[in-house]
Every structure is written in C-alpha cells, then in structure tokens.
C-alpha cells in the first residue's frame, strides 16, 4: 500500500469487497459497543484513512504479542488493517537492520511529528539506568522517552507494556515498569493480555482511525468496550457457577460435563477481557472453552497472584505452613507470658506481709 493510498482503495486492490469491508466495520462497531448506526461512519472514516505512521517499539517482551497479531489467522481484514497502517519501525517485521532500522524510526518521527501512533510491547527496565535491555546502544528507557515525545498517542500492547507483566514479576531483577510509569503527558491506551486478543488491537486502531480520539478507558487505561466486563460475566459456563456445579479435577465427571472451573483456580471473576465474547483463533474457542481456567493474564501482577490452580477464595501464599509457624510462635510466646505472670504472682506473694491491728491504727 502506498502512503497516499486510502484504506478503501488498498483493500479493493487486495481483493476485499466493499461488502466484506462493511461487514468488518459493522463487527467492529458492535465489538466496541457502538450503536449499529456507527458502522457506516467507521466505514467512511476508515475508507478515507491514509496510512497513519506507526512506530512499534519492542522492549522486554517475548514477541508473543506480535505473533498473536500477525499469525492469528490467514489473511483477514484484521491483518489487512494492520497492513494498512504504515508500520515504519518494528524489529520483528521490518526488513531493515542495524543503523538503517534506526534511521527509519528517526525519519518517521521527524516526518510525522506529533501525528504518529506509538505502539509499545514489552516492559521497560529502569534499574541501573536501564542497562538490562538496549537497542542500537540506547536503553529502552531512552528510546521510549525520545519516541514518545512527539507521538500523538501511545498504545501499550500486551500485559508487559501495560502493567510490567512477567519481567515485572517478583523479584523483578531488571526493575521493569509499564509505559504508564514513565510517560505521563500522553494519552495511553492499555491493551493488556498475554497476549492480547488480535481483534482488540485492531479494534483500538480502528477507533483511533475513525474518530481520531482514544476510546473510553477504565481506571487502568483499558478500552471499556473490550475490558468493561469480566470473563466470568460473559462465560458460557456461568450458569454452572450459579448452580454450584464445579469440576473438581481436570478429568472428572464435572470437567467432562463442562461445569464451572472455579474450584480449579479459574480467575474469570476478577479478569476483565473480551475472550469470552470475541474468542480466539477466528472465534473458535477460548481457554475456558477448551477446559482450562482463566489465568487472569490481562490483569496487573497476574504472575504474582498465587497458583493458577488455586481458587480465587484462597490465599495467594501457602497459609498452612505459615499457620503452623504461627502456632509454634504463639505457643512459645504464650508459655513465656504465662511464666512471666507466674513469676510476677509469686514475687507479689513473697512481698506480701500481714498487716497488724497496730499498723492499721497508726495510719491517719
């Protein structure tokens, strides 16, 4: 796609019919909980959109977010929307290497100053001046600060960029932090998930392209349209939860009947994401549908929230060992307190002497 070509023209050239494009816009409108009447608006805005420049910075990450987006399914409109932006810098996807790659970033920053969209995946290490992750001699911290300065908006893709993710997990050796801890003066959209749902990423991009604004966000900077409900709210196994029908192991009768996975550690009730509605792999399935509880991967500190297989109502730590320790400590302290009182009592007894009548009469 040429930079001055509109998205509508580009899609037509790639063999996507107008009808297919409108279907995508309608789906996007409904996904983002917009009124159905917004679909033509989206179509019009997207159709006219010229390729916006996008700089994609990858920091402490596993490339899973990029994989999720690019390998999710065979060419679909989602991936073509991604093609339709001008991805001017992306380690994994760009052909250029070394200084040529860095030049591409600097060139885009200069040419589309205050217009380009910055996408970040991965957390930013800040311990010891950020030496734990460097690109072309720059620390991630320097590169983010430099690139964010003239960005129109920032999309933090994946749990690492949104909340620190696995690099941020205890003991966080690199001092990893999310984008929001560093950049305070730009609109930031968090699209968490490990990885995030591809259609959520493209939905956010479509919203930005359509309205030129960022979607409505919750207190954790997540688009409410995708993260407004919990997995549990939308789970097709919710009725079993309400009926008290739970799978106790992964291969018991309850598991085979598709009962609720709460007792097996499902974190659906406290996880805000769209997996239960948009699903994965071309809307084939999502973790709970394939028999495994939700890990809560789109929530902060999901890696440090105790075992994935312990129910939500239990402690994140091992309380039984802790309780045994407390019993021993309590018994020792109790015996010590008891002995102290005994000593106090016997010393009081030994100090005691009987008062005589004469002594009492002496007193005024």
């Amino acid at each position, binding site marked *: 796609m040429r930079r001055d070509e509109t998205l509508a023209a580009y899609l037509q050239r790639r063999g996507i019919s107008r009808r297919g494009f409108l279907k995508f816009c309608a789906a996007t409108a409904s996904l983002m909980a917009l009124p159905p009447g917004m679909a033509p608006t989206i179509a019009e805005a997207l159709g006219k959109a010229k390729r916006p420049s996008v700089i994609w910075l990858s920091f402490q990450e596993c490339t899973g977010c990029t994989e999720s987006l690019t390998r999710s399914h065979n060419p679909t409109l989602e991936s073509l929307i991604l093609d339709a932006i001008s991805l001017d810098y992306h380690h994994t996807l760009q052909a250029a290497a070394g200084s040529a790659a860095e030049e591409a970033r600097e060139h885009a920053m200069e040419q589309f100053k205050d217009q380009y969209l910055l996408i970040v995946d991965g957390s930013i290490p800040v311990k010891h001046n950020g030496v734990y992750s460097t690109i072309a001699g720059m620390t991630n911290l320097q590169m983010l600060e430099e690139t964010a300065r003239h960005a129109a908006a920032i999309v933090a893709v994946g749990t690492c960029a949104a909340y620190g993710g696995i690099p941020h997990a205890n003991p966080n050796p690199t001092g990893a932090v999310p984008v929001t801890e560093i950049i305070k003066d730009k609109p930031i959209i968090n699209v968490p998930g490990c990885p995030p749902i591809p259609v959520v990423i493209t939905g956010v991009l479509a919203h930005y392209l359509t309205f030129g604004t960022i979607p409505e966000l919750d207190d954790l900077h997540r688009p409410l349209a995708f993260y407004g409900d919990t997995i549990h709210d939308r789970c097709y196994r919710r009725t079993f939860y309400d009926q008290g029908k739970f799978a106790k192991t992964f291969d018991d009768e309850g598991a085979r009947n598709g009962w609720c996975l709460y007792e097996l550690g499902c974190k659906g009730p*406290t996880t805000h994401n769209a997996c239960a509605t948009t699903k994965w792999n071309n809307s084939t399935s999502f973790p709970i549908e394939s028999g495994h509880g939700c890990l809560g991967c789109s929530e902060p500190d999901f890696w440090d929230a105790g075992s994935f297989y312990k129910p*939500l109502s239990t402690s994140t730590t091992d309380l039984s060992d802790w309780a045994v320790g407390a019993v021993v400590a309590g018994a020792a302290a109790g015996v010590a307190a008891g002995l102290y009182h*005994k000593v106090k009592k016997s010393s009081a007894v030994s100090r005691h002497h009987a008062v005589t009548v004469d002594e009492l009469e002496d007193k005024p």
Partner: protein
Amino acid sequence: MSAIELLNWARGPALQVAVAIFIIGMIIRVLEVWLLGRKKDLSEARGNATAAGWRTILTRSVPPPGMWSHLIVGYVFHIGFLIALLFFVPHILFFKDIFGIRWPGLPNGLIDAVTIITLAAMAYTLFIRISDPVRRMLSTFDDYFAWLVTFLPLLTGYLAFHRHAGDYTMMLAMHIMSVNLLLVAFPFTKLTHAVTLFLARWYNGAIAGRKGVRV
C-alpha cells in the same frame, strides 16, 4: 493501587499477617489464662468439679427463662454467621487450602437467605444496644467496634456475591480486607470470647460443682 492489586495484597501478605496475629494472639490469650491456674482448693470436695465444669459449658448455652426474646437474636446471628462462614463453597475451599480437608457445602441460595437473616439479626442487636438506656450506658467503644468488624465481612461478602456496589474485584478485596480486620481485632477485643467462653464456663461450673452446688 488498582482493585486487583488490592485483592492480591489482601489475599497474600495482608492475609498472612492477619492470620499470624490471630493465631499467635489467641494462643497467648488462652495460655495466659490457663497457665496462671487457680489457687489450690484445700477443702474437701463435696461434688465432682470436672463433670460440673463440662456440664456448665453446655447448660450456659440454654437461655434462662424470660430472656428468650433477646437471646434468640443472639442465637440467630451466631449460628447464621457460622453457617455462612463454614458452608459457603468458596469458604470451604479456603479452609481446604489450609487444612487439606473439605466438607459438603450448602446451596448458594440458602447461604444467601441465611446471610440476610444474620445481617438483620445483627442490625437488631445494634438497635437494642442503642435504644435500651441501660445497655447504651454499659456499652463502650470496644462493643461497637466488635460489632462493626463482625458485621463488615457479612455485608461485604453479600455485596460481592451479588455484584452490587460496583466492581466485583474491589468488593472481593474489601471482603477479604474486612476478614483481615476481624482476624487482627479478634485477640484484642471481646471477640476472644469465641474461645475463652469455654474456659470461663468450665471454671464457673467446676468451682460450683466442687462445693456441691447443682449446676
């Protein structure tokens, strides 16, 4: 701090500290009473102290005639509290995680009804305490505080279960924090009666029983 971070903290380090304070505090309180012992009674026993002690533990649970109206509310909230605590399935999972054993739970609808009745009974106990001039005069901060820390886990649990009052994550965090508060307050308030009532009743019964008083 976001709701989920508060929840993780409440389920993790905060719960650990609360459980440690609860266990250590309660063991100290009971051992203190027990180890202090009682002065040796040199008089000849006129009855069986031990049997009278055990019997009193049971008989004092039966309300004396004429006090039914008020005591019934006390029964309702104590028993209701224990049912909600011990037979709600997520709570059973909590205890299974610690003790390794589980027992059958009650249906959510039943727990729900019990919780509403318990909340109402507790509200009524507060009403009696405030409306009766004698009780009001006798009540101290400790009494109201003990009521509050017992009431909060029930209320927050009810709200969390029904997804009232906003975000479930925040409500669950509030519920667990209120339980942590209850655990921490337990050894330092009159809530210790949950354990010490047995010691007190036993001693009362045993003393009377040794003197030959029928208990």
